[in-house]
Every structure is written in structure tokens, then in C-alpha cells.
């Protein structure tokens, strides 16, 4: 069942086109990664999903409802953590958490206390004294303490330490176990790789690539490092390999997935002493898209 359905979404700010036909579909129980460089349109997309901005054209449906018109209904089952968490300086963290969970209409006192303890937050401090990481914790606790069906998270871990990041991943995994859906926008590709089932890459307001992580991997190359008994003659002539580095008998190269079979057949005759293969990382995938236009971001 589709929780989020975005089709042909266009958003213009005056003459500037921020989103130029975004399509996205998050199904129930999925953890969906939304990645892209700064200014690509991630936050704009999320804000339109939340009814903060109005789409110029296209359809944005969440739980089958219109994101702009039925915002309040949708928000009853949605929890959001903004990228830049700004809180009221003269309220305490505890007050903000209570207020947010009450507004959403599903406060869960037990879970809230558990999260406060796990994230090691002092809820009696005024928000003005919190660091960026602590403000983020307040927003995360408020989000995960309520019984939402959909979690929209905009770079939620940018201020957290590794221990807290780990805690965050456990919260997301638990949400998934409970059958909830998560849309995670992030820069941290390793995080997306660890957590997400599906990924969309956005660039200059357009989705470049979408699908399950496994499928996307096929679109890119694998790095192989092979130590042979005799040096490989003319490695440049082997079809389908590039980025070659030679160190004595060790050959390191990138190979396109569809050429893997042919390449190995040509190298095996030289005798294999050692073979290492690194699967394509999301970073390779990401960089590939941004390098294509000679515009690495």
C-alpha cells in the first residue's frame, strides 16, 4: 500500500524552478532514502509534503489525502524532524516534547520517558541552552514518542554523536518492525545504505535514479583488486574495465557489472593469487550522477 505518492511535482519560487517534476512513492513498511546534494530540492519536497509550501503543479498524496488541503488530517499520523531544529528559547525541552506529542494527539508517556533516558536528554533545560545535537534530540524524541504511521526525517543525525546515531538507527528499525514507513533525507550515505530499502537520488529538482538499493547497485561498477601469479599483459585492452592501477602483480580496476564475466575469464589464465571485490557503494553511485555533468557537488 502506497503511503506517499508524489507525481509530477513542480515548485517554482518566482522564476526559479526548485522542483522540476519529482516522482516518489513510499510503500507501507518501507524505509525510503532520499539523497542529493545541498540545494537539490530535498527540503522543498519535504516541506510540500507537509503542507508548509504549496505545489505549483503535480500531485502530492499522503495516506491517499492531499498534502496541502488535508494537512491537519495527515499530520495526525505523521511525525516530522526538520533539518534545522529551531525551538522556543524560553520553553524547556520537556515542555516542547509534551506539547508536540499532545498536538499530534497520541502522547505515549512511557515511550517518551524511555526515549529521554536513551537519548540522555535533560528535559528541564531551556531550549536556548541546548546545542544543535540536543535540539535534534528533542525533535527526535517528540517524533518517536508518538504513534505515527509515517516518519519524515530531514537529515536528522547531522548533529548527533556516533552513540546517538546508533540509537537513532534503532528507533528507525523499531518503527519498521512495527510496520511504519520512514522517509529519510540524508547526506550520510553510509547511514542510508545501512537503513534504507529503497533510494531516490534527486539533483537540480529532478529525480535521477530510484529503486531498491540492490537494483541500483547494478547500474554501477565493482572495484576489483586481483593479485595474479604472472603480470597481466595489456590490461588496457580488456573490454569493460577502467580506472586501472598496477602495482607489481597487483591489478586494481573498476568493472561494469554486465562485463564482469568476460573480464574474469580473461584474467584467470594468469593465475589468481588473491582476489578482493568491493561492492559498489552508494557513494560511487552518487558520485557517478554528479560527475556526469562535470559538476561534482
Amino acid at each position, binding site marked *: 500500500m502506497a503511503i506517499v505518492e508524489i507525481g509530477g511535482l513542480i515548485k517554482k519560487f518566482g522564476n526559479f524552478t526548485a522542483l522540476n517534476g519529482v516522482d516518489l512513492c513510499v510503500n507501507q513498511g518501507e524505509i525510503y532514502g532520499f539523497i542529493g546534494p545541498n540545494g537539490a530540492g530535498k527540503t522543498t519536497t519535504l*516541506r510540500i509534503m*507537509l*503542507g*508548509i*509550501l*504549496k505545489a505549483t503543479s503535480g500531485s502530492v498524496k499522503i495516506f491517499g489525502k492531499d498534502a496541502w488541503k488535508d*494537512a*491537519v*488530517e495527515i*499530520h*495526525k499520523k*505523521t*511525525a*516530522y524532524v*526538520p533539518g*534545522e*531544529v*529551531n*525551538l*522556543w*528559547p*524560553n*520553553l*524547556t*525541552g*520537556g*515542555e*516542547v*516534547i*509534551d*506539547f*508536540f506529542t*499532545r*498536538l*499530534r*494527539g497520541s502522547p505515549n508517556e512511557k515511550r517518551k520517558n524511555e526515549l529521554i533516558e536513551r537519548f540522555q536528554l535533560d*528535559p*528541564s*533545560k*531551556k531550549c*536556548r*541552552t541546548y546545542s544543535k545535537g540536543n535540539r535534534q534530540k528533542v*525533535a527526535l524524541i517528540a517524533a518517536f514518542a508518538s504513534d505515527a504511521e509515517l516518519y*519524515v526525517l530531514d537529515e536528522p543525525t547531522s548533529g548527533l554523536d556516533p552513540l546517538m546515531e546508533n540509537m537513532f538507527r534503532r528507533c528507525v528499525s523499531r518503527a519498521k518492525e512495527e510496520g511504519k514507513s520512514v522517509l529519510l533525507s540524508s547526506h550520510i550515505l553510509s547511514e542510508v545504505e545501512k537503513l534504507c530499502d529503497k533510494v531516490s537520488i534527486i539533483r537540480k529538482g529532478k529525480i535521477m535514479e530510484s529503486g531498491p538499493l540492490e537494483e541500483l547497485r547494478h547500474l554501477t561498477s565493482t572495484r576489483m583488486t586481483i593479485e595474479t601469479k604472472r603480470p597481466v599483459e595489456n590490461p588496457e585492452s580488456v573490454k569493460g574495465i577502467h580506472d586501472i592501477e598496477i602495482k607489481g602483480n597487483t591489478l586494481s580496476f573498476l568493472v561494469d557489472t554486465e562485463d564482469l564475466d568476460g573480464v574474469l575469464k580473461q584474467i584467470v589464465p594468469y593465475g589468481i593469487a588473491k582476489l578482493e571485490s568491493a561492492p559498489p557503494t552508494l557513494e560511487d553511485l552518487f558520485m557517478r550522477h554528479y560527475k556526469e555533468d562535470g559538476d561534482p557537488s
Partner: protein
Amino acid sequence: MMSNRFAGTSFLIGSLLRKNRIKIPIWILSIAFSVIFFGKLIPDMYTTGVDRQIMAETMKNPAVTVMLGPGYGLDNYNNGAMMAHFMLLFAAVASGMMGILLTLPHTREDEEDGRTEMIRSLPVGSSSSLTAAISVSALSQLVLMLFVGWGLYFLKLEGMDFSGSMLYGACLGAVGIFFSALTGLFAQLMSNTRATSGASFVFLITAYIVRGIGDVSSEALSLISPLGLILRSQVYVKNRWYPVWITLALSLALFAVSLYLCSVRDLGAGFIATKPGRSKASKLLTGPFGLSFRLLRTPFLAWAVGMFALGAAYGSVLGDLEGFIESSELVRQMIPEQEGLSMTEGFIALIIAVLSILGAVPVLMFTLKLRNEEKKNRTEALLSNAVSRRGVLGGYLLVALLMSVTVQIMSALGLWSAAVAVMEEAVSLKTLITAALVHVPAIWLMSGLSLLLVGFFPNRTGFIWLYLTYAFFVIYMGDMLKLPEWTYRLSPFGYVPMIHADEINFVTLLLLTFIAALFMFLGFIGYERRDLEG
């Protein structure tokens, strides 16, 4: 060691001047221009000696003294004496505000937002930021002084000589420097921006009130207030410089204390610490109204108390006013009695009108609060919860409307309680409260206009303050400047009936309320339809 503490100060001064290259000239020019322009008007307003003498007699009125300060040189009420009497106090309050608002951003605000930390990581001394901020503010006041001094002198008016004009400028500069140094001190004591600006403005308002009470009752009380002290310079009449020197010496002392406190405290810390708050929200914090009330609770109470005090300050002169009118046959002849309106009643009506416009300030602040929240990126997280835009906007509007009724009742109560103490035949509380409440629809109209701006022109909300300043100016100065009728009609407050004079005109009041409601309705529509910034 000593020089290390101030390393890089001159560089910081340069960068602050560059950063404020628009703001500082705007402050200086708008204050200097208003003062000089006012000076230019005076000879046209009062052409004959008889005119001036009539004015001088009315100026002996204690109610006027409370508003404008003591009149010096009333026996020879020339351009200079009028200029000093009408405008020096207001201009001094304005330069005091300028001092506060130029110092605050580069002391506690920079520190709270983490900019001071970045500057301190450079080869810059621990006292350099504070010194630079105060220096830039003081420098601006110096330029203001020269502008005002030369400007007034070049009007070449009789009674406004060079030394008097320079003293006029120096008075404004000294008050501005004093409030800069004071804000610098509060920035050390308080641990956050809000408390710093709050303390500075409360001090300014208190200085104004204490002076007002002092001017009609006790000279010593007036001298305690920096505003009262500076008026004792008797510009253009006796030209005394000692108040300027004392004010500057006090400023220097405040600055020295701030430097000491700055050197013994940690970055980011204050001396008046914030207590830990409650770790759970109270039962009231459940919806948008709960939030807006919780956020505005402190200013709400402060304004309620402040308006009561201001009402009482004005009310305290009513006794003297009766005596003043009885004592002078001349005054009674000169001031044509308006129909059904005694002079005392006329003054009460004026005071209530002035208090109402001041009372509109918090109402507009509260109405615009949501726009401020939006600028600070706080509405995004709020509206991602199950709460409608209508509800959030309505929450702030409701507190604002509540404030409008509260300030009116509080200032009427203040006025009444003082009047009872000093008047032989006190005005009835009911009359005063009614007189105050008839202004409420006009305040609502201003609030509705603000809401309209929030909905459709969120980047132009500052306009409402210009409009309110206009309304204030017309009511406060209109009689003295002999402004034509239509200038009153341009502000909603010009339509409010004078309670003693007219029968309450319910049609006008209903019409004002209706227009206010219409503006509010449109404002809601605009806010629900537009993109939010954050």
C-alpha cells in the same frame, strides 16, 4: 597583558561599522531630521508674541510637564525655549532607544548566536568585542550630536545660538551613550538576549516615568532619572553642561564595570542565571492557544503592570491640574471651554487617547509574533503536527485581543487610583473605563491591519509601526502643531469619540469593529494560502 585583552579592537570596530553601514545612518538621519524639521516648523506655528505667551501659559500645566518635562524660559518663550521644551525629551528617548538597539546585537545577541565565539577564536582579546560594540554605538551618537547641533544652528532662528544647539545635540548623544553602556552592562549580567533587551527597555521606560513624577513633585526624584537629569541642562535658556558631563561620567563607570564583569565571566554565561524549568509541560500547554499564551505570558503581565503604572503617573497630576486652572484667571479665559468638556476632562480624554496608542504596542507585537516565529524557523516543526494554520494564527490573535482589553482596563484603573488620591472630586471609575474601552475597536483595526500584512505582505509588517507612530504623533502633538482635521482622520484613533464630549457613537464603533474583523478575515485567508518560510 592589559593590551592583549583589547587586541584587535580597532579591526572589530571597522567590521562593525561596515556591517551597520545602513542601520546607523538611518538611525542618525531619522532622529536628526525629525528634530531639525520640528525646529523649522516652530516659527511658522507661533508667529506673534501673543501666540507664544498663550502657549507659555498653557505649558505651565502640570499635565504637560509630566508629558514633556519642565518648561524653562516660559517668561520669554522664544524658538529655542520651545524647541527644548517640545522635543528634547522625545528625541532623548529616541536616542536612548538607538543606543540600546545598536549595542544589543553586538553584545549578548552575537554571544548567544555563537558569533562571538568564532571571533574569540581569532587573535582577538577577551574584552575586544564589548569594547568595539560600545565604541561603535558611542561613535554613532557623536555623529548624531554633530548633525543635530549643526542642523539646529543652521536654521538660524532667533533664540537658537551655536552653543545652545551644540548642547542640544550633546544631550541626545550623552543619553544615547548612557543607554549603550547600560545595555553593555546588562549584556554581562543577563544570560540571554531577551532578558538583556527587556532590562534595558524597562530601565528606559522607568526613567521616563520617574522623571514625569519627579517633574511635578520632587526635583531630587527627577535627577535620579537620566532623562530627568539631561532636561536640567535647560538648553537655549541657561545652557548648562553639567548634566551632559555627569551622564558621560556615569556611562564611563558603567562601561568600566562591564569590562570587569566581562573579564571574570565565561563566554556564554551571565551573572543572573536561568533556573532549570519544568521537565514536563503543564496541562495548559495543549493547543495553539496554550502555546501562544505560554510564550507571551511574561510580556502580557509586564505590559499590564506597566500600563497601570503609566496610567497612575499621568493620573497623579490631575490634582495639580485643578489647582492650576483655578489659580489662573488668564488660563480660563484663553482656553475656550469646549462644549460640555471641562479642561480637566479634556486632559483626561487626551491622556486616555495617548495611553490607548501606547497600549496598542503590545497588541500589535502579539499579532505579529507569528510572523517573527516564522522568520526564526519555528513554525515548520509546529505546523507539521496535527494543527491548522488557522488555529495557530488564531491562538496569537486571541492573546492579542485579550491584551487589548486588558491594557485599556489596566491604564484606566491606574489613572483612576491616582486620581482618587489627588483630586477633590474624582472622576468615576466607570467613566474612565468606558473612555478607555471605546478605543478598543481602533486598536482592533490596527491589529487587523497587522494580520492582513502577515497574510499577504509578510515582508512589509514593519509598516504598521510607522502607522502607529503617525497616530501617536498626531494625537500627542496635533493640538500644539495646530494640525488640520484630516490628519486625525487618517488614523483609526481619530474616529474614537471623546467620552465626555460626545455621546458614544455606537455606529462609528461598530464600523471600526467591522473593518477590523474584515481585515482579520482577509489576513487569515492570506496566511492559509501562502508559502511559509520556515
